[in-house]
Each structure stands twice: as structure tokens, then as C-alpha cells.
């Protein structure tokens, strides 16, 4: 089946005729290190600046032509030429073959489940980047959690090679995380692009996340290619979606491409539109090196692998580079492209996208948004960099303290790949030693937890998430103590009382809800119950409404999404973006057991919610605290005011009925186990509280 390129062709090979009429001689982009078995040639086209010796290793350069030939390709003028998926091939690709004008950097953005990853799979197949098999399901979603949830957490990048009208193009597909929690990552990924494919489900139409993504692309002034996917579905209504796109995005119907990524229908058209509509990056290879870090991963053996987009100059092994953010200098060990696995190249040139390995030990050294430049040739850093800002905090503890070290190492390994998680050691009297982790958002938290469980087999207690509140201090003493007027409160124990504070602040978000109009009433009621303030309400077509609300972040943390789904029979979609802070009437609620405060259950709540939260906590505690020899009063209090109360009645009888000769061994074993457990219980005054009780109150409640 292999039709090997003749050595005599000197790196030029004729593709099998099946690949179409435009079968031409093409340069192999692979450069052979060994001088023994190669032929030199001169690059025939493209960049006029350089003449590079390109070598082809005998036989292998065009291996697996089944991948490349794309027999039956409907497009005579487009074909695939890059033969790099060769397991045995050790050579390096010459990236100078791709001048800036032949490069397109683009991204696919979509609401969850609208088919982003499936479209990416098809693009990878069409360009021969991956073999076309039935197994190509969300190739770029490498994580188990991504495939399970149908979301993209960790963006992947793939360089595609595509010949269109006789020109070899390098198309860099920069995948983005599909959730607003990662909007900063999305924005950095997009800043490496000049265009986006905006995918909308032909059945569901525009959803909240589509809006968020559109605005990100629009604000970044990217070319937008609207694509209506899933036209093969029975209920597909591409016309309605086209109208929505026209109305909301001001893009004409004619621009929309109707496709079925699943079946491959019209997918090549999308590729061609990318080439036609997305401008090449406007960069200059003669400028000094300026590279944007838009993602980073950690490899156990090679250290940090930073995904970079070159905005100027070139980069190769041996270069000394500097991080604009940290000022640290590194020596480049390896550069290459992502296909989507790393493929080393000799160099990367301005406009190109790839990876770099430079002896960075931690992902924090390759922060997303950072700019890299050549040592002694500093450049103006690219705009938009910010350090990850956690918006949701949760305590994480090992289920069993003996698992502390294992969990610690699992968290460390996981955060090697995710610098946006902040970690503070924490310890709870009830739950032992653990951490307070900061996440970009709720999904981020969930994904992190799920990855710990799935990839590291760690079992953890995750406490209910909280948000970072702020307090503007009025007490001079406290201001002096904190050395600032405005403090962030992560731990309720640090909540300053209202007499030393001029105001409290809570984080808010701008939420977008898109829903069929019959659910508006219920959704408005729901939002109001969450203390949300309506900002906007527009019909995006005859039946669908887009609502915009300012929500306190805390109000959407726990079960908002589920409530929204259940109030709308699953039809409403929701997305949000950071909207700063607003003043809030916050109070600290204490939980008392027989009059003694339980430190780890102290909670900061909005005054309006205190009663409901207090009641729920008391009820959960009542179920979780075993009966004791005396009655236990469980109270939720605000200052000295009791707002909720439950009672655990005293034991009246718990003595074993039969205890004769044959019962003693078993009874002693049971008693000693219980006595051991009693030692481990946390004593609040004279009340013994088992760890499980804390867990049941502090734990994030399952949302299903």
C-alpha cells in the first residue's frame, strides 16, 4: 500500500494519482540530520529569503501515503502533503517552508456540545494530521474528564498542513477551553489567532456560551467564520440559527457555512474559508523574537512545555530567552510544532505556533499570557497578561490523614499542569491537615477534583465552595495590622466584625441566560431569589430570549445551574463573566452546639440568606451527630441572635441485651472500636462530633 517516494526525487515526490489532478512535486519538509542518506535540493517556492537544504530520508518520508493520498478527495485543487506521522522518522521539519503569508492561526469556539471537538477531529483527518478511523473522537480532548463531560479543559493545539490552489498552507488550530471559567485562557489562546470558527448547533441555536465566546473574538477583532453544525439532525433548523447569527452578531446569512462535522459534510469548505477569510498574522520575521505563551503543560521528563505563538523573529535550540514576567533567562533545548503531539523542528518563525522546552521546572515559570524574548533584546511585552485570579475557594482534605502525603503529591502533580490553581496549606480541627485551593470557577474546581480521583485515584473531602469576600477596614488598628485598607477574606475565621469595617464587598458576575421564552417567568423568579439584578433582556429570535443579570458569584456557586436547567426543562443555557465587586450586607454566621461555637462551621453569608443557610446546616448536623447521653441543641447564630435550631435527643437505651460467654469477644471488639472512634471525635464543649458530621455539613453537596 505504500508508494514510497523515489530517492532520486531528492525529496520531491509524486503523490499517488488518486490524490487528484494537482499531484505535484512537493518538498518534504523533513530535514535529515545524518548526511549519509539524503539528497539536497533547493526550495522551489515560498520564502525568497532563505534557501534551505532539505533532506529526505530514503523511503520513509512519504510513508503511509494512505494518510496523505486522501483517495476520493472531492477537491481537485486541494490536497494534503505533509508526511510526518512516521513512527520511525527522526528528522526535523523545516518550518521556513511556511512564510507568514501561508500561515493561518485560528481557533474554534462553541457552546458546550455544539460540536467543536468533532469539527476539530474532521479537520485533523482531512489534513492528514491523524488517520481517519472511527476512533477519532475528540482527539484534542486528551483528558478523561474532557471526553466524559464533552468539554475541553486543557486547550490543545495542532498544526495542519493543507494544499489549497497549489499553495501549501500551515494552518494552526489553536483549541481553546470551552468554559467561561477558563475565559482568561480563551482570551490568551485567541490572542494567538487571527480568526475563529464560531460553531453553533443547528438545533439548539445560539447559547449563552456562544455569546461569551463571540464577544471574546469580537473584542479581539478576529475574523469570524460562522458555522452551523449538525445539519444532519432531524430537528436542525439552520435558517433560524442563521437569523439569530444575523441579529446578534451582525454577520450575514450568506457567510454561514452549514456543515455536519459528524458526517464530514462541507468541512473542507470550512478549511478553505479559513484560508480565504482569516488574515495571515501580521508579523515580521526580521523583528526581534517576541513569543506569547498561550498555554503550558508539564512533562515529567522534559519539564515545562510552553505553547508559544511567535509575534516576531525566530527561535531555535540554543537561543537564550527571557520571560518578561519573571525576568528569568533560559536556554532553549527544543522547539517544534504540535501535530497535536510534539514534533521537533529546527526553528520556529514569526507567525508560527508551536512549543518550546527551555529547562523551565514549573508551569508557573511559563505563565499563560507571558512574553518571551531573546536575552539582551528586550521587547515590549504583549498586552493582556494577568496572573490567574482564583474566584472560587474550597478546602481539600484527605479522607484519611494517613493519605495526606499521597494527596499532596497528587495535587502537586496536577498543578504542575495547571498554574491557575492556587494552593494554601490549611488545617481544620475537624478534618485535619489539608489545603485551601483557589480555582478559576466552579467547573475548574469540579474538573480538578475529578482528575484527582480519576488520574491519581485520590479520595478527598472537598468542602463547600466559597468566594473571596472583601472588607474595607475602618479600624485604624486593623489597617495597621494588615497594612492596607481593603482586605480579602478567604477564611471565615478572619472575617472582621462590622464595627471595624466601613463596608463589605462580594464578587459579582455578569450572567447571560438564553432560554425559550416560555420559561422566562420561572427563570426571572429564580434569578431574583439569587439576589440577581436584571441588566438586559432581548429576544434573539421569535422564541428565544437573552437575559443579562448581575449575580453575586456566591449565589451561583452551588446549584444555580441545576436549578436553571430544571426550571427550563433543560433548555436554558447560562454563562457568566467576572464583573468585579459590589458592596454587600455580609454577616458571619456561627454554629453552636450546646452553646459552644464550632469554629470550622463558621460561614460568611449575605444577611438575606442567613436564615436559609443556617436552617439547612442545622438540619444536616442533626442528621449527622449521633445521639449522646444528653440532649444537644444545634443553633445557627448571628452575633447573639439565634436564627435556627435543631435538637438531637438524648440516648435512652443503648446497652447490648445479651452478653454471655460467647458474646464477650465480639462485644469487646465493638466497644474498643467505638472507644477508639470516640477518641478521634472532635469535642465541642461536651458534645462529641464525628468527622462524618463535619464532612456532611462542609462537603459540597452533590448536584445531581
Amino acid at each position, binding site marked *: 500500500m505504500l508508494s514510497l517516494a523515489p530517492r532520486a526525487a531528492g525529496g520531491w515526490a509524486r503523490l499517488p494519482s488518486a490524490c487528484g489532478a494537482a499531484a505535484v512535486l512537493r518538498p518534504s519538509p523533513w530535514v535529515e540530520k545524518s548526511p549519509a542518506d539524503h539528497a539536497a535540493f533547493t526550495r522551489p517556492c515560498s520564502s525568497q529569503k532563505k534557501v534551505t537544504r532539505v533532506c529526505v530520508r530514503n523511503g520513509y518520508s512519504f510513508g503511509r501515503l494512505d494518510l496523505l493520498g486522501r483517495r476520493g478527495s472531492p477537491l481537485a485543487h486541494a490536497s494534503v502533503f505533509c508526511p510526518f506521522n512516521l513512527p520511525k522518522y527522526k528528522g526535523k521539519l523545516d518550518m521556513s517552508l511556511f512564510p507568514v503569508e501561508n500561515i493561518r492561526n485560528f481557533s474554534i469556539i462553541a457552546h458546550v456540545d455544539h460540536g467543536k471537538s468533532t469539527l476539530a477531529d474532521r479537520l485533523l483527518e482531512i489534513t492528514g494530521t491523524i488517520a481517519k478511523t472511527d476512533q477519532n473522537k475528540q482527539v484534542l480532548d486528551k483528558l478523561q474528564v474532557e471526553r466524559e463531560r464533552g468539554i475541553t479543559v486543557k486547550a490543545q493545539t495542532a498544526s495542519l498542513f493543507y494544499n489549497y490552489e497549489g499553495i501549501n498552507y500551515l494552518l494552526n488550530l489553536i483549541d481553546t477551553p470551552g468554559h467561561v471559567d477558563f475565559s482568561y485562557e480563551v482570551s490568551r489562546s485567541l490572542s494567538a489567532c487571527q480568526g475563529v470558527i464560531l460553531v453553533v448547533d443547528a438545533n439548539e441555536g445560539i447559547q449563552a456560551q456562544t455569546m461569551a465566546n463571540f464577544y471574546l473574538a469580537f473584542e479581539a477583532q478576529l475574523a469570524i467564520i460562522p458555522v452551523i453544525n449538525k445539519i444532519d439532525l432531524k430537528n436542525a433548523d439552520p435558517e433560524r440559527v442563521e437569523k439569530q447569527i444575523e441579529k446578534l452578531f451582525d454577520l450575514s446569512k450568506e457567510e454561514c457555512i452549514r456543515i455536519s462535522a459528524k458526517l464530514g459534510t462541507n468541512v473542507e469548505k470550512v478549511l478553505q474559508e479559513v484560508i480565504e477569510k482569516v488574515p495571515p498574522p501580521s508579523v515580521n520575521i526580521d523583528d526581534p523574537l517576541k513569543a506569547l505563551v498561550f498555554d503550558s503543560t508539564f512533562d515529567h521528563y522534559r519539564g515545562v512545555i510552553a505553547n508559544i505563538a511567535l509575534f516576531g523573529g525566530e527561535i531555535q535550540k540554543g537561543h537564550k530567552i527571557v520571560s518578561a514576567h519573571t525576568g528569568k533567562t533560559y536556554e532553549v533545548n527544543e522547539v517544534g510544532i504540535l501535530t497535536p503531539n510534539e514534533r521537533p523542528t529546527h526553528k520556529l518563525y514569526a507567525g508560527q505556533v508551536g512549543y518550546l522546552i527551555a529547562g523551565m521546572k514549573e508551569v508557573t515559570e511559563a505563565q499563560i499570557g507571558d512574553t518571551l524574548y531573546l536575552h539582551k533584546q528586550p521587547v515590549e511585552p504583549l498586552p493582556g497578561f494577568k496572573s490567574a485570579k482564583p474566584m472560587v475557594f474550597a478546602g481539600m482534605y484527605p479522607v484519611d490523614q494517613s493519605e495526606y502525603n499521597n494527596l499532596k503529591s497528587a495535587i502537586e502533580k496536577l498543578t504542575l499542569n495547571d498554574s491557575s490553581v492556587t494552593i494554601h496549606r490549611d488545617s481544620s480541627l475537624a478534618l485535619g491537615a489539608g489545603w485551601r485551593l483557589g480555582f478559576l470557577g466552579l467547573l475548574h474546581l469540579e474538573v480538578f477534583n475529578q482528575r484527582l480521583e480519576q488520574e491519581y485515584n485520590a479520595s478527598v473531602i472537598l468542602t463547600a465552595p466559597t468566594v473571596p469576600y472583601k472588607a474595607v477596614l475602618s479600624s485604624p488598628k486593623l489597617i495597621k495590622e494588615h497594612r492596607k485598607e481593603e482586605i480579602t477574606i478567604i477564611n471565615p475565621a478572619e472575617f472582621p466584625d462590622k464595627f471595624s469595617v466601613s463596608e463589605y464587598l462580594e464578587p459579582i458576575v455578569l450572567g447571560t441566560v438564553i432560554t425559550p421564552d416560555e420559561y422566562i417567568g420561572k427563570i426571572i423568579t429564580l434569578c431574583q431569589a439569587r439576589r440577581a439584578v436584571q441588566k438586559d433582556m432581548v429576544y434573539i429570535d421569535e422564541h428565544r430570549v437573552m437575559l443579562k443579570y448581575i449575580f453575586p458569584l456566591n449565589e451561583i456557586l452551588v446549584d444555580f445551574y441545576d436549578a436553571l436547567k430544571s426550571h427550563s426543562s433543560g433548555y436554558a443555557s447560562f454563562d457568566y463573566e467576572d464583573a468585579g465587586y459590589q458592596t454587600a450586607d455580609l454577616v458571619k454566621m456561627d454554629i453552636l452546639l450546646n452553646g459552644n461555637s464550632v469554629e470550622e462551621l463558621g460561614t460568611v453569608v449575605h444577611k438575606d440568606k442567613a436564615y436559609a443557610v443556617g436552617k439547612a446546616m442545622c438540619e444536616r448536623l442533626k442528621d449527622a451527630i449521633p445521639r449522646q447521653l444528653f440532649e444537644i441543641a444545634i443553633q445557627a447564630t448571628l452575633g447573639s441572635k439565634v436564627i435556627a435550631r435543631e435538637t438531637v435527643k438524648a440516648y435512652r437505651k443503648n446497652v447490648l441485651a445479651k452478653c454471655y460467654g460467647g458474646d464477650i469477644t465480639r462485644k469487646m471488639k465493638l466497644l474498643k472500636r467505638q472507644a477508639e472512634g470516640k*477518641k478521634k471525635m472532635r469535642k465541642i464543649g461536651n458534645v462529641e462530633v464525628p468527622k462524618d458530621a463535619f464532612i456532611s455539613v462542609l462537603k459540597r453537596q452533590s448536584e445531581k
Partner: protein
Amino acid sequence: MAAPGGWRARTGLAVALRSQRAARQQRTLQKPLPSEEPLRAALYVHWPYCQKRCSYCNFNKYIPRGLDEASMRSCLTQEARTLIQLSQVHRISSVFFGGGTPSLASPQTIAAVLETISRCAHLAADAEVTLEANPASAGASRLAEFRASGINRLSIGIQSLDDAELILLGRDHTAHEALGTLEEAKKLFPGRTSIDLIFGLPGQSVASWTKGLEELLQQCDDHVSLYQLTLERGTSLFRQVQQGSVPAPKQEVVAEMYEVAREMLRDTGYRQYEVSNFARNGALSAHNLSYWQGSQYIGIGPGAHGRFVPRAQGENLREARIQTLEPDSWMKEVQAFGHGTRKRAAQGELEVLEEVLVLGLRTDVGIAHQHWLQFAPSLSLWDVFGTSVEVKELEDQGLLLLDNRGLRCSWKGLAVLDSLLLTLLNQLQQSWADRTAHGT
């Protein structure tokens, strides 16, 4: 009734053996012993067979298929011989035939075991010898035969006087049959007939329980055992409750039943001498008391438990022993090795003390100082519990008493003993560790 031949035979034998033993005893008595304790033990005999499985019972029991009673008998006697010799006790203070349903065993088997015991150690003529009897397998003539073979106390599993409840419990007798057996037993074992009752059954109310109890109190003898139903995993009743086909008894209701029953029995002249045991006219069960006093006991038969010092092996530590559970395997082992001991675990001093504490507090008299000092000569009850804040709290709550008599539960405390024990066990462990630390 007819002169009990077996009984006479045994007592005759005992007299014969007594002179031998007296001689031996004199030799040993030249060396003063710390107490009488090592020289005596109670003996439990497990009869592992039942006619029918009760829905609540998770004891070691089997429905026999082709039971070879002669083999069983010879194995029981063999094991009794082996273990009594191993313990080197001189005196068996009481014997208890439990099960299973030991009233299904033939009186000859009972007699054979008792004879063997008498040959190996002193079994006083008036020593308590109890048989557990099931109303269905204990007609008048059979009871008489048991008496003739040496039984002098009967414990009848009446369980309930409500036929519907008896069906729920899977019992193979009616309330009427049970009362008939009780009548006969009282004639044969006057003052030494005990009845077992179960309360806290699914669907049972405080009123229905009290009514049944009241009726029984008019007819029963001097000893009553009241057991709260424990739903044991693996029993059919447990499954039925799990599956919701019968309601789970409510904690509050069961506590009330216990409370009311205790009061009724007290008012009828019974002394609650243990958590579940009530006696009048001094008819306490000597055998069961010896468990609660932490005395030695030898267990024979499949799955029987024992606690004794195997002095014949030169050991000084008490062992917790368990015999092989399954009757056929047990028999094979006894035939091969003379005993079917499956598990032996030496008990340290602390472990013995823990048992003394847990068991002793089940009785109304609790643990007397002198009694405790027999087991812990250098660590008094005052040393252990006298300064503990938590123990003081329990005293202040009126649940526990530590005074010049010793340590015991109050009336209220007895019902929640298992909670008290957790505090007390931890305190004992702590004091023991402190003492050891200071000692070294």
C-alpha cells in the same frame, strides 16, 4: 417423680472422686494461692442443632441431617476431659447447656457430659446445671428425664405470648404450648425455672408488650430474662426490615418498653441483677453471674467460647478460646486431637481488666473494690477513675457511681451502659498506660 438415677450416679461418683481430689488439694494448699479463682471454672456446653431456624437468631446453629448423636456425645465428653485437664481446675462451679436447642439432645448425652465433668473435677451436688429448653421439644416426661440426668435449672425460650409475634420470630411453638411447658417446668424445677422474652419486635407497641409481660408475670417462676431484639446481619428478620417488608422498631419505643418492663418487674419483687436479667427469692443464675464477674469458663462444643488459663501447658496468662464452629469439622478435630479449639489468644492484664469492667458494670452491684483488686492488685478503681473529669461528668449526670462500695451504674445509667463504657474503657487504657510509663 422417680429417683433420678443419673443424678445419683453423678453424685455418687462425685463423692468417690472427692477423696482423691482432697488429697491433691492438700498438696497444693501447702503453697498459699492468691485466690481460689484459678482452681475453679464455669463450664458451657454448646449443642449446635436446632429443628428450625428462628428469624432473628445468628447463633452458631445447624439444622441436623442424619445426626450421629453417639459421636456427638463422645466428642463432647472427650473435649470436656481435655479442656478441664488443660485448665487444671479442681472445681466446676456451674454447667450450662446452651445452643442451638440443647433440649433436642437426648438426656443420656446430658448425663454423659455431666458424668465426665464430675470425673475430671469436682462438681458439687448443688452446683447449678442449666439447660436451655425450647417449648416444642420439652414435654413433661422429657423434662423429667433431663432432671434425672442431672439438670437442676431450666431456661425456657418463651419469647412471646403473642402467636403472631412467634410466627414473625420463626418459632416452632405457640404461646399455649409455651405456657404448658412453663407449668411443667415449674413443677419439676421449682424456683429454678427461668423464662426468656424478647421485646422491641417490629410492629410491637408498648401496650402490647406490657400486656404480654403482665400475663407472664402471673405465671412465671423466680427468674426472667428480657432481651431487646437485636437485628443481626444475616438473619431473615434483618433482611425483612432492610427491605421494608416489616417496620423497623423505633428507638424511642424500645427504650420505653425496657423502662416500663424494668419498673413492672421491680414492682413485682424482682431484682434486676443484670441488664437483661431479673430474679426474686435469690434465684440469680450463678453460671451467668460468673461471666459478669470475669471468672474463668471453659467452653466445649462447636463454636463454644472459653476464658481460662491453660495451666497444664505452664501458662500464666488467661486465653480467650474459640472452638471450631462447624459441628462435623469440630468432631473430626476432637477425634484427632482430643479437642476442637480453633483459636487461642492470650489475654494481657489490661485486656482481662477491660472485660472485668465491661461485664461487671452490667450487674446491679457493679464492681466492688475487692473484686477489682483481684484482677488489678496495684491499680485500684480509685486510681483508674477517681480523678477523671469525664467520669466525674457521668457521675454528675447521675449515670454512674464510684463510692466506697465500688463502681456501678445508676438505674438510669444501666440503660445507656454502652455509652458509659466508651469513656470508662478509654480512661482505663489511659491510666494503664500512665502507670506503665511511670513504672518503667
